[in-house]
């Protein structure tokens, strides 16, 4: 049975790759490409599910040892890195999320991309993306993880820049890649350090020995956890890049320039979760260092809150969702930082489902509204696209954390962990902020639903229509999913908690299942419902022109402007980093290199030329001056010999 597993695991990755290759070389027709891509992804899901079941059939302790090495990747003396995969409970659930949600997005895309100029290319990217993400979660060592990590970065770059004729797409794609690279810098540094400390990059070698890091000192940071902290901190940089946390979060909202289903795939369900996955995967290192873990928590919670506040001020339907993603990722990162790893993964899974739903819903809206994205130009779309509306409402409820939707369970577990405490202690302030953020979430989602679906259509220049079945069916499936997926870790049973236990056992990081707190549940749900009610009151059923200002500007003033302009983060980055960078580049290129470094080189040559011309003046052409120089030479030579005899 294990052998079957060994063949299935590579197949999970290879299938979407084959899909990509077929589409790349053999297919010219968009719809056919979509079908092939979807088939590949679905097949990968089926294989993944089979593998999952097989894994579940294994005894508890063996579940973390399904490790298959395809070939030796890097074989450079002491540096040995296999091209190998590890299929353990953690990667198994990730595989299911990626291929499952991914398949639905593929299917949805067939309809959505029907009128695109380059659908084949799009599906190639999509399949590649899934493959890269699968490599990321299935890798059995950090370097291969890094391959997937950068691979999804590349695919997101391609997908965001898919419609490269549009300026924002071009810029956003590059911004995404570069910001991710900055994060990758940290991760790579962490990987280098891990290799230096352990002489290997395999999880199977590092995690059981992770404890050795405690007590190792480095000269510039004192304290027994210095090395572990440094490594974890570098990883955290990577996490902030990929999972769009402060300070590297600004690429994600811009990344909405890609096709909407791609946003669903990349920026909601899969790619951005890899940061969280990394922390959970590397929990063995993070639990050693309370300081970095706490930093992680603060970054997460700050991101959650700030992104939520920004989401309130956005008019673009996708941008709201984008900031909501950033905010939800903040929840997950905070949870991972606290050591509530199961909670983080739990929220990751539920969020993956309902955020995909919301994005696809938004895609359906945009598709039906003929590429309109500004919510002020929408309104009343409920009647035109009922299926989209109802599924969207389900997603909203899930995101807002309304009982009994998935988001309720997972978010509650994170908030609960903050108050109840973890191995690093309790986080009451963090918990409070998270609750407030959850309320804000309910607010802006209700605002969105109100603006898009309720009331009357404000801009009647287009005729909205419902999307075709190939797009709505995935929406229904996901809507059902957002209800069901919450059950996988429902209090009392804690399926996910138990399923992941073998993973955390290695580093003795298994936590106690969190007791369910009714008080907390009631408070959060009540706050969310209250916020939703206010939003409904403010936004639903109003008569506005299509260019109205948000009524909140009246009450919040500059704060709302801050929301609207994303707290000016991009402008600050532009002024602090981009412009000095460009100015320095220009200085180096125009002045320092040609006049400084090259100036020395040319100057030396010029000096010789000058010497030559100077000499020509001496060569006067007068024989008498030649004889004079001769005589001077005689004097010098005789002078030397005179000097030599005296000495």
């Amino acid at each position: 049975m294990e052998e079957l597993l060994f063949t299935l695991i590579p197949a999970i990755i290879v299938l979407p790759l084959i899909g990509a290759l077929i589409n790349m070389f053999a297919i010219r027709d968009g719809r056919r490409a979509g079908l092939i891509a979807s088939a590949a992804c679905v097949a990968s899901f089926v294989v993944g599910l089979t593998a999952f079941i097989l894994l579940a059939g294994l005894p508890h302790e063996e579940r973390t040892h399904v490790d298959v090495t395809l070939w030796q990747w890097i074989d450079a003396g002491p540096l040995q890195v296999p091209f190998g995969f590890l299929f353990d409970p953690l990667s198994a659930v990730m595989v299911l999320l990626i291929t499952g949600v991914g398949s639905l997005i593929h299917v949805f895309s067939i309809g959505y991309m029907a009128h695109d100029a380059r659908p084949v290319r799009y599906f190639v990217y999509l399949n590649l993306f899934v493959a890269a993400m699968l490599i990321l979660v299935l890798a059995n060592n950090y370097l291969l993880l890094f391959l997937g990590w950068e691979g999804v970065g590349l695919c997101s770059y391609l997908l965001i820049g898919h419609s490269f004729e549009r300026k924002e797409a071009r810029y956003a794609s590059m911004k995404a890649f570069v910001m991710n690279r900055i994060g990758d810098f940290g991760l790579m540094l962490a990987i280098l350090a891990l290799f230096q400390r352990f002489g290997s990059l395999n999880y199977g070698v590092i995690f059981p020995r992770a404890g050795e890091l405690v007590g190792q000192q480095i000269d510039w940071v004192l304290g027994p956890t210095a090395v572990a902290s440094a490594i974890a901190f570098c990883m955290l940089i990577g996490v902030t890049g990929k999972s769009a946390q402060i300070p590297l979060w600004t690429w994600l909202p811009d990344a909405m320039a890609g096709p909407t289903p791609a946003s669903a795939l990349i920026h909601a369900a899969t790619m951005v979760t890899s940061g969280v996955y990394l922390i959970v995967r590397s929990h063995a290192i993070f639990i050693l260092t309370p300081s970095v873990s706490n930093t992680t928590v603060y970054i997460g919670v700050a991101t959650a809150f700030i992104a939520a506040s920004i989401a309130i001020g956005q008019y673009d339907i996708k941008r709201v969702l984008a900031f909501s993603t950033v905010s939800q990722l903040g929840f997950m990162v905070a949870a991972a930082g606290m050591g509530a790893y199961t909670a983080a993964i739990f929220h990751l899974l539920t969020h993956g489902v309902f955020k995909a739903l919301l994005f696809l819903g938004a895609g359906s809206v945009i598709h039906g509204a003929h590429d309109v994205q500004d919510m002020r130009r929408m309104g009343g779309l409920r009647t035109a696209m009922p299926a989209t509306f109802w599924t969207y409402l389900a997603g909203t409820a899930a995101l807002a954390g309304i009982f009994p939707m998935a988001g309720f369970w997972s978010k509650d577990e994170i908030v609960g962990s903050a108050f109840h405490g973890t191995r690093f202690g309790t986080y009451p302030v963090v918990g409070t902020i998270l609750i407030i953020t959850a309320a804000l979430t309910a607010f802006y989602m209700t605002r969105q639903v109100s603006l898009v679906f309720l009331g009357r259509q404000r801009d009647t220049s287009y005729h909205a229509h419902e999307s075709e079945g190939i797009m709505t069916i995935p929406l229904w499936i996901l809507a059902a999913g957002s209800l069901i997926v919450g059950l996988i870790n429902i209090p009392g049973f804690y399926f996910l908690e138990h399923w992941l236990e073998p993973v955390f056992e290695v580093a003795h990081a298994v936590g106690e299942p969190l007791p369910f707190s009714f008080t907390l549940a009631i408070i959060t749900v009540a706050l969310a419902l209250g916020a939703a009610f206010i939003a409904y009151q403010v936004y639903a059923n109003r008569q506005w022109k299509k260019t109205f200002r948000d009524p909140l500007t009246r009450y919040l003033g500059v704060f709302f402007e801050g929301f609207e302009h994303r707290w000016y983060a991009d402008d600050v980055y532009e002024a602090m980093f981009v412009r000095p960078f460009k100015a320095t580049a220009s200085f180096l290129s125009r002045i320092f290199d040609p006049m400084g470094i090259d100036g020395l080189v040319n100057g030396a040559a010029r000096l010789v030329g000058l010497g030559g011309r100077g000499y020509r003046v001496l060569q006067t052409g007068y024989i008498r001056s030649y004889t004079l120089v001769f005589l001077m030479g005689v004097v010098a030579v005789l002078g030397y010999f005179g000097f030599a005899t005296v000495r």
Partner: protein
Amino acid sequence: MVPTEYYVMLSALLFTIGVTGVLTRRNALVVFMSVELMLNSANLALVAFSRRWNHVDGQILTFFVITVAAAEVAVGLALLVGIFRTRRTTNVDEVNTMRG
């Protein structure tokens, strides 16, 4: 007997006069004469040394020097005549079309 040093001093003096002549005179003929003076001062020294060492090597050399000087002057005068024909001058300072 006059010490050898005296001859050498005299020859050095003559040599210096010759060198000075080459350096200061513009007429090519006078320059030639100055060069002759230099050569002959060497001859004087040679003869003096020859007497000091009491063999004839130096004197033999002196004869060669005289011969050489004569040959040189022959070629030199021929050249000078040629130059005088084309340029109507024997001033060495005017012979400087090539420089630099």
